[in-house]
């Protein structure tokens, strides 16, 4: 398995803009863009060197540019959900920012032209747009299903339209597209596009539903999970979830280094947040000391 070694660089904020309910930040980060593939992520230090916020924040990579006057850049999309992301949203152009990347296991690209459906929930669409470009470069057909709670939380719909055969949109409040969830329209899309492979990024519940529907259609699902992480590089062991290995054995694996992209049918979605009793090293009946 090829894996680009991550680097830690002192980057610089090049731009920060609002995109609906989200923020998109472009960071000059030499040495990262050049090795990034769709599905990789970066981990940012927040709060400055003396901050009380100690843990890195992980973000999937929306876009990269590996040339130009500035050198390599990466762009991320985030929502303000806590102190760390609030700090990010207050950055000014030219502010320094410590970046580690590219991290994780990216999406696997098919060797042959396939029909692919890309499913994004909220800003989970961000890593799927560069994936769509890579798939199209390999002669794949790409269709999108994008969902969000409301229109301002729908990301990348215009861009998706430009680079795909079709885009289906759902919002929970019906403010744009069909009212409902992506899982309400995905089966129809899988049939229409004669789908071979589904790529998805979004909340766990969405990924579980996408995997089930892809399986029912006979398509493979590749899912990028959003788990909270402290480090992003594989040392903290906080971002684990139960995944079935090639040998059929379930292990608690790190979503930062073994993911964030997993084969959907390998993840025990219903057991995420637990340690299944048949997992390797699970507490024996009666509890573990």
């Amino acid at each position, binding site marked *: 398995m090829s894996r680009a070694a991550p680097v830690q660089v002192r980057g610089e904020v090049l731009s920060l803009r609002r995109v609906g309910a989200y923020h998109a930040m472009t960071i000059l980060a030499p040495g990262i863009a050049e090795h990034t593939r769709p599905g990789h992520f970066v981990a940012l230090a927040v709060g400055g060197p003396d901050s009380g916020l100690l843990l890195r924040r992980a973000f999937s990579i929306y876009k990269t540019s590996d040339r130009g006057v500035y050198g390599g850049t990466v762009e991320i999309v985030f929502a303000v959900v806590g102190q760390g992301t609030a700090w990010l949203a207050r950055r000014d152009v030219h502010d320094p920012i410590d970046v580690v990347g590219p991290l994780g296991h990216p999406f696997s690209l098919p060797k042959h032209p396939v029909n692919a459906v890309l499913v994004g929930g909220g800003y989970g669409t961000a890593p799927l747009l560069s994936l769509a470009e890579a798939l199209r470069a390999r002669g794949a057909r790409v269709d999108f299903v994008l969902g969000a709670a409301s229109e301002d939380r729908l990301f990348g719909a215009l861009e998706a339209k430009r680079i795909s055969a079709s885009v289906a949109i759902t919002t929970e409040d019906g403010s744009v597209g069909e009212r409902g969830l992506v899982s309400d329209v995905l089966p129809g899309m899988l049939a229409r596009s004669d789908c071979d492979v589904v790529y998805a990024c979004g909340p766990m519940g969405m990924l579980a539903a996408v995997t089930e529907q892809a399986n029912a259609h006979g398509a493979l699902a590749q899912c990028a999970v959003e788990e909270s992480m402290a480090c992003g590089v594989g040392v903290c062991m*906080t971002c684990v979830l139960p995944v079935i290995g090639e040998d059929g054995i379930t292990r*608690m694996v790190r979503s930062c280094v073994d993911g964030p992209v997993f084969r959907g049918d390998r993840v025990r979605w219903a057991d995420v947040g637990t340690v299944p009793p048949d997992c390797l090293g699970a507490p024996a009946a009666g509890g573990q000391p």
Partner: protein
Amino acid sequence: MDLATTLGPLRLPAPVLTASGCAAAGRELAQFFDIAELGAVVTKSIMMAPRAGRATPRMAETPSGMLNSIGLQGPGVEEFLGHDLPWLAERGVRTVVSIAGGSVEEFALLTRRLRGAPGMVALEVNISCPNVADRGLVFACRAGSAAEVIAAVRREAPRDLPVLAKLSPDVTDIVEIAQAVVEAGANGLSMINTLLGMVIDVDRAAPVLAGVTGGLSGPAIRPVAVRCIWQVHAAMPHVPILGMGGVRSGRDALELVLAGASAVAVGTATFGDPSAPLRVQDELRHELAVRGFASLADAVGLAHRRGARVSGAVGAHVAVERDESGRDGAPDTRDEAR
């Protein structure tokens, strides 16, 4: 600057180590810096069998700290010996193997299994992990059980293998525990493990961590580490201490050294900065140099001698000690630096 240090029989060319549980088995951090430049890598605690650990969420960020509730997830000693330790040995990394057990017997079995393992320079005995279902099994919370584990490890360990006991700050009298494990054969002490803590999500009105409680680490606990090291070094100045607890910079490392630590481990800071252990080592060298120290050894426990100087008779005694040790010249420079 002479950064070489000793932890009893363990001689290290450099004084900064990784803290157990914050560096896995070294491989991930080796992507960011040369881990062989550190004093040593202390591995995540190894148990006999593979262990899945606790459910998620396992982590909560807290003011200048974090709670973790990993629950000693690990591959088991056989996988560690077949996979992790050889990788470290091939790269010339000095490795302190941390072991954890659910019983005295398991600690003894682990020690026996690890005898002669390549690259292992010491054992750190984790008798203080707070993330276990039965608080009664936090051996380090009682002098008797702490000593029992260390004695069993000492019996099984080769005579020349240094054994460090990792202590919990969550005790009434850490000096009592420290004395018990030293009497039982520990060559040195690792202080401190995390403090047991808890966070409640007020919107859900429920604990944040799936395991309910977790271990608090990070700069928030550094004063506790300094206090524990200070108390134990004051009571047993000849027992070497590997200090850890909230070290994020060379200045922080120096604080633990001045309290009595002969070496310092970097833990939680690594999550925010994967280069932190080597950065702290470089910064510590600088912090010592600007204060006029010729070596790390000159700074170990110095705050005790300083504190004593202003308090009459005890101060006179310490001044004599310093004269006997032949360390001169530095004190005046240090005064200026303060």
